[in-house]
């Protein structure tokens, strides 16, 4: 379609092309396939809960609390652990990452130990943490913290190490002191990497909290999974799994929004 715009120039409306329609429909198709697969599997064996059954279990869960905690209470319990652990991980991770990324001596002092601790999965800490701190809230948050802090440290360090020399030259040319060099030149350079680290940490924290809850908790979405398994209540397991998926995806959306807020210049391409 050809139209004439304000300046009298002819231009074209951005038409909705068949391609756009395809891209719009494809996600729904994949969800459709997933539901179809679910339907097929559940119709083969009666052990696998069907969609209707799961939906009914979901409605029941809304009415009837488990361990005296309502459904949203379990979600909030998991989120609370994640948020506290993440905030602590952001503060500690950025501080430690900056220390080893900005100071070569600190890097060589801490680097080896850090590289040794890094590959240990957070869940492997559970026994030690449990015998040391018991089974309250703190040990769970600590495990989540361990899972979240590592990507933040790694990305902060990598971000600072990859600051381009030319920006450091500019810092020197305009007589930045060491502090300004770090805060006004290097840190902003490293910010996109740090934020990417926080995004990774958020999804890691969400996974770790669920695993930690499955091993010993009286609340939380992970606890619902265990509870469903123990009570042979498979619809409950599915409700919990779907909740985990939805909230994980929402967390991803939120962190992306925060990224846009923190790095406004990244939006301009």
């Amino acid at each position, binding site marked *: 379609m050809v139209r004439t715009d304000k300046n009298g120039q002819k231009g074209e409306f951005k038409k909705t092309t068949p391609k756009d329609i395809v891209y719009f429909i494809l996600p729904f198709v994949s969800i459709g396939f997933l539901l179809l697969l679910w339907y097929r599997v559940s119709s083969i064996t009666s052990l696998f809960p069907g969609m209707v059954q799961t939906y009914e279990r979901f409605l029941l869960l809304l009415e009837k609390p488990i361990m005296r905690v309502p459904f949203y209470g379990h979600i909030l319990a998991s989120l609370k652990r994640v948020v506290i652990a993440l905030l602590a991980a952001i503060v500690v991770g950025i501080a430690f990452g900056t220390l080893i990324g900005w100071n070569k001596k600190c890097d060589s002092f801490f680097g080896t130990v850090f590289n040794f601790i890094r590959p240990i999965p957070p869940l492997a800490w559970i026994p030690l943490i449990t015998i040391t701190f018991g089974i309250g809230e703190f040990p769970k948050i600590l495990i989540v913290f361990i899972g979240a802090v590592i990507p933040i440290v790694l990305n902060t360090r990598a971000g600072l190490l990859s600051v381009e020399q*030319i*920006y450091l*030259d*500019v810092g*020197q*040319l*305009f*007589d*930045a*002191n060491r502090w*300004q060099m770090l805060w*006004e*030149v290097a840190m*902003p*350079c490293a*910010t996109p990497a740090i934020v990417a680290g926080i995004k990774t940490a958020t999804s890691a924290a969400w996974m770790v909290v669920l695993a930690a809850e499955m091993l010993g908790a009286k609340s939380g979405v992970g606890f619902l999974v265990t509870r469903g398994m123990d009570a042979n209540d498979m619809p409950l397991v599915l409700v919990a799994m779907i909740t985990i998926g939805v909230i994980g995806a929402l967390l991803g959306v939120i962190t992306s929004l925060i990224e846009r807020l923190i*790095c*406004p*210049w990244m939006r*301009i*391409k």
Partner: protein
Amino acid sequence: MDENKVILKISNLSKTFEDKKGNVVRAVDNVSFDVYDNEFLVLLGPGQCGKTVMLNVIAGLLEPDDGEVRLDGEAVNGHSPKIGMVLQKTALMPWKTVIENTEIGPKWKGVSKKERREKAESYIKLVGLSGFEKSYPAQLSGGMKQRVGIARAYTNDPEILIMDEPFGALDAQTRYAMEEEVARIWQQEKRTVIFVTNNIEEACYLGDRIILFSERPATIKEIYVNDLPRPRDMISEEFMKLRTKISDNTDLAI
């Protein structure tokens, strides 16, 4: 104004560096020259001849192997705040807006926000970028970015302004416009400018004096005094004569 007061004295400067293959390369070889107060000095030399290395030594970003740089009679050690620089690659901070980029010099010196903003504004106006203060560098064209680079350098109030092939990455049209701008700004804001280029026409258009360098290692071939009246006419007979004289004496860079 004393035309021939020496502000910067470069004596017997030599610098070698190691290239990526580990070979030792002599970039600058025993170079000496004087820079006069408020002059527009052009350093002209073929690409890769060691000009940038020499500038980085003068600006204090690199240590010389030999020789010294004296500013107002005092030996320069490291970077002197009296020397400002406009970089070939502009190097604006992508996370800062135009005005924030322009004011970094005074900001880092601790000048109050009101005062440094005013100063930055005035130089942004001088380079013709009023209205773009809140834009990010990624929203600007190459020529506009380099204007910000120039405003940033002036806002820091250097006695000597080094410009390292600032227009090398610009298209021909923009380049002519920017050459005019730089000549205009220099006449409005008298300051010593050391301008580096590999473009003979640009050198003749801008320079009061033109120092011609050989290919690497950079040594001085000849110094030309250019007293053609400004604004200069690039197709006048005298301009062409000077241009031909210099180009006949230039090492080709390939």
